[in-house]
């Protein structure tokens, strides 16, 4: 599975989105279930799926799917087509 697919599945799972709702340009305000507890779930999920730990400050700074991609890219995770 590509990293793109992995991230998509993680976001669907954590925020209970339908597949048809997912886009890589989704922002936090587009996702009703992205609350503070959702941020914790997302951070744990990133650790589980990509093996990278986010600090609380990094986790709370995430404001979009693009931010997740950016922070993972900065850790060396490859997102060639995102």
């Amino acid at each position, binding site marked *: 599975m590509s990293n793109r697919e992995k991230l998509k599945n993680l976001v669907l*799972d954590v925020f*209970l989105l339908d597949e048809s709702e997912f886009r890589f340009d989704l922002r936090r305000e587009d996702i009703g*279930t992205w609350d503070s*507890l959702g941020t914790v779930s997302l951070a*744990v*999920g990133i650790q*589980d799926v990509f093996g990278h730990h986010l600090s609380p400050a990094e986790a709370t700074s995430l404001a979009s799917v693009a931010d997740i991609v950016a922070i993972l890219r900065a850790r060396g995770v490859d997102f060639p087509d995102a």
Partner: protein
Amino acid sequence: MRILLDRGDSVTHDLEESWGGPATFAFLPQRGGVPEEWALQALGQIPASMRTGHFALLSSGSTGEPRLVLGSRIRAEALARALHEVQASEPVRRAVALLPLTYSYAFVNQWLWARTLGRAFERTAGFAQPARLAAALDASDQAMVCLVAAHVPLLEQHFGDRDFPGVIRVHFAGSRFPQERLATVRRLFPNAEIFNNYGCIEAMPRLTVRRASDGDSAADVGRPLPGVELDASPDGRLLFRSPYSAVGFCDATGFHEIAADEWVATGDLGHRGRDGRWELDGRSGEVFKRYGEKVSLPLLLESVRSAWGGAGAFYRETDPLGEPGHVLFLSPRPTPEQLHAILAIFRERLARATWPLRIESAPSVPMLAHGKVDAGALATAPERRVEWSQRLG
């Protein structure tokens, strides 16, 4: 004082003898109970004044710790008569028992009722011997059965489209009333009046009764029996005072007397409803705060009923941040569509803090002998599988 172990069919003779004799006795399951030494030690703590004319049953209660609960035979017989009146049981000629007799519900509502009112009593092995159970129900004429909600799917599974017209009273107790399966119960027992009984072993065991036809909510347990008082504490705990209640109990810390005028916690949360009826909000452990949000596990299960018709149960778990949480356990395994529908309900109707940490499934739910979910065994159930996780534990 003596210990009477439930050794199966022959025990009713021993029970009759023990009930008719002066000595206080403990009636215990032969298997899955407590060591006989523990029971003997517990009995030894009973005050001299209660060593005659009483009986004791075993409960793990809401704490999971064994308790020997002591009842008065005079009070229990009075309760059997009160139930007879309230449930209009005069036409009933026979009690057919499916549940273990050491369970206070079967003991008082069926065995003692039959003994006190001079009716026939027939014991079956329940679903351990379905053919014998079916034969007993088929042969029944003006009979009464006492069920727990978990029996309804088992009746359907084992007996399909059959019905049992000879059963004229069906009682439920011991767990949430199966309101959403009433049509099935009515089909299985087309001539029966159906009752929701509520109580706890400390009440020995009944507190309220309602006819199924008098309400449309599983939480509605009806009105208190004559002489029984219910109240809710400021934090929502349901309390009772009853002329039929247990007189005390023994646990690891000794004997604890229940005074005649004492308010006793049922272990449930509840509130006064309309017309003097009472409604349950859940077991004390089933309602808790998580990240400041009130979580009610019974309400949570209720909210997914439109998407899930199978069995549902919960076990508690603390999340990695130290907050209390819960895991939703489903059986049989949900289809992807059902799982999607359940998650859609979470998303649309429930705050995230009330979502379970995980949804798990297994082909069957671990059950205790008396038909309640074995909550302690859910986390280690065979073939357990994670269907969805919040990734918080």
